[in-house]
C-alpha cells in the first residue's frame, strides 16, 4: 500500500519514487506545493476509490498521513 502511495505521489510530482519515503511531505520538496497537494489527493482518491474530506486536505503533511483513509476503505 505504501509503495503504491509513493508511486502515485512520485507520478504527480514528476520525481523518482526513490526520492520519497512515507515521511516525505510538502515541506520537503519544492515540487510539492499547494497545487501538487490537490493533484496528489485527486490521484489517490481516484486510484483507491476513497474520498478525503476537504477540511483535511491541508492537514496531510506526510505521505503516511494518507494511510488511514485507505485503511478505512479496506
Amino acid at each position, binding site marked *: 500500500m505504501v509503495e503504491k502511495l509513493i508511486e502515485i505521489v512520485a507520478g504527480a510530482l514528476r520525481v523518482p519514487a526513490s526520492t520519497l519515503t512515507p515521511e516525505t511531505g510538502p515541506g520537503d520538496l519544492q515540487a510539492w506545493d*499547494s*497545487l501538487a497537494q*490537490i*493533484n496528489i*489527493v*485527486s*490521484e489517490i*482518491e*481516484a486510484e483507491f476509490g476513497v474520498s478525503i474530506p*476537504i477540511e483535511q*486536505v491541508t492537514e496531510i503533511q506526510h505521505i503516511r498521513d494518507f494511510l488511514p483513509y485507505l485503511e478505512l476503505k479496506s
Partner: protein
Amino acid sequence: MNAAKCALLSNVNVESIARQIQRHEVHIAQGYGAWTQELADPASATFGLRPSTIFLIIDGAELLRGQSELQLILAELDEHLAWIERAAELSPDIKFFVSTIDVPARALRPVKEERIERRVEEHWQKGITLASASSSNLYIFDLKQLIEEFGRSHLYSNKRWYLGGLRFSTTGERLIAGELERILDAQMVARKKCLLLDLDNTLWGGVIGEDGINGIQLSETGAGARYRDFQLRIRELGKMGVILGLVSKNNEADALEVLETHEHMLLKKDDFAAMKINWSPKAENIAALAQDLDIGTDSIVFIDDNPLEREAVKSALPEVTVPDFPADTCELSSFFERVYKECFFTIESTEEDRRRTKTYLANAKRAAERTTASSIDEFLDGLRTKILLTRAGDEDFGRAAQLTQKTNQFNLTTRRYTEQELRTLQSTLGASVYIASVVDKYGDNGKVIVGILRREAPGTAELDTFLMSCRVLGRFIEDQILDHLVSELRRDGFSRLRVSFMPTRKNAPARAFVERLQGGQLVSSDTESGEQTWEFDISTASPVTKAAHAELRTTHELLAEVAS
C-alpha cells in the same frame, strides 16, 4: 523535436494543465481571472513572451457566474469575442485557439423554464465560428466536444474546484493537455503525407480472390457497414490533402472490379494516386511507390490487417509508420480517428473550408459592428471600476490578515501578519493599516488590497506592506491607490516615502510595479535577501505615472493616525 512556446489563458485556474505539458514551453497569465485583459493589452506579459500559440480555455459556468439575464450574458460574450478578434488581428503571427464552452445547467428550476445555457453555448459557438472564418489565425478548440465525449461527471471535479479553483478532474486535465500538446506538436513536426492501404479484410471484409465480388462484406448497413464507415473516414482524409495509395497482394483485375463496380465501394480508383496490386513483397512495392510519388518513406503510413505483412514492412522499412490493426473491426472508424490524430493531424483548414469561408465573410460585418474599444485604456475604463479605500476597522482585520498570509504575486514585502498583530498595529502611533475593496461592472471583487504605512523619521513614511489579490491585477489599481496615499501624506506634511521590495519566487508582478515608479533613490540593498528600499521625494511629485481608470472613494479619517 523543438519545443513550441505557448500561452494558456483562462477564466479558471489552469496551472495544473500547464504543468502536464512537458514537451513545450507553456506560460500562464498571472491572475487567471484576467484573460480578456491580457488579450486587450498588447503590452501584457502574454504578448511579451512572443508565443507561437495562445490558447483560450473558457469555462462556461465561471463565465456565467452571478449573471442570469440572457441578453446581458450574450452582450458580454460579444464583448469578449471582440477583444479576441482584435488581438488576433493585431498579432497575425500568433495562432489563437479559442475554446467552445460547456455550460452545465445551473440552478434548480421548473421543467417548463427555458434552458438559457443552450442559448449561451450556441451564441458563443456561432460567434467563434464566424471569427474563425474571418481570421486566418483564429481557430476553434473544441472543449465542449471533449466534455461531451467523456462526460461531465468524469471531466469536472467539485472538490478540486473548491480546493483550488481547478475546474477539471485530473482525467479532464490530462485529456485537455493531450489535445493542446497535439496542436503544438503539429506546428513543430511535419505530418505524414501518404496513406497506403491493403484491400482484403482492410477496405472490405473477406478475400476478393476467394469470395468474389458478391461475397465480400461491404454494405450501407449491417456488418458490412464497418468497412464502408472506415472508407468514409479515409475519403475524408483524402480531402484534407493526404495522398492515398493501395498496396495489395491480389490479381489486379479482381481488385479493380471491386473499385469500379461495387455499389458500396466509396473509394474509387481515382481516389488513389498510386497503386501496386501484385504479388511482390509489400516493402518493395512501398519503396517503389515512394519513388513514383517523390516522397520519403518516412512520410508514409501503412495500414494492413495482416500482422505478418505489417512486421515484414516494419523490419524492411522501419521509417514507415505501421499502426496496429484493431482486433475488433467494429472499432475501425475510431481506430482511424486515432491514426488521423497521431499521423495526419492538421490545424489548417481544407480548400473546401476556405471556400465556405467566403460566404461566412459576407456575414462578418456583425463582428465589425461589435465593441470597437481600441486600447487597453478604453478596456479598463469600460470596466467601470470603483475602489473604496478605508482604514481597516474591527471587521476588517480577519480578511486583511488572510490577505497578508495568502497573497504571493502582487506583494511587495510578503510580510505575514496575524489578525491580532494587525489590530495592534492599527492602534500603534504612527502606523496605519488600509484595506480596499474593488467593484466593477462584472461584480464585487470584495476586499482585495492591503496597505500598511508606518511613520519613521519626521516627514518620512514607510510602506511596510502593499499587496493586492491577483484577480484585480493589471488594471493599475495599485498605482492609483499609492498615488492617493501619496497625496494624503503630502497634505499632512510628509515629504518622503520609502518603498521596499523583497523579491520572492512568485512576486514578479510586484517587481513590475516598483520598477514603474518614478524618481526613487535606492537607499538600501541587501545582497543576501535581495530586499531593496527606495526613497521618493513626494513633496512636489508622485512616483506614480500611470493614468487612473477607476473611481476612488475614501473615508476622510484615512490618515488620522499617521498625522497625529
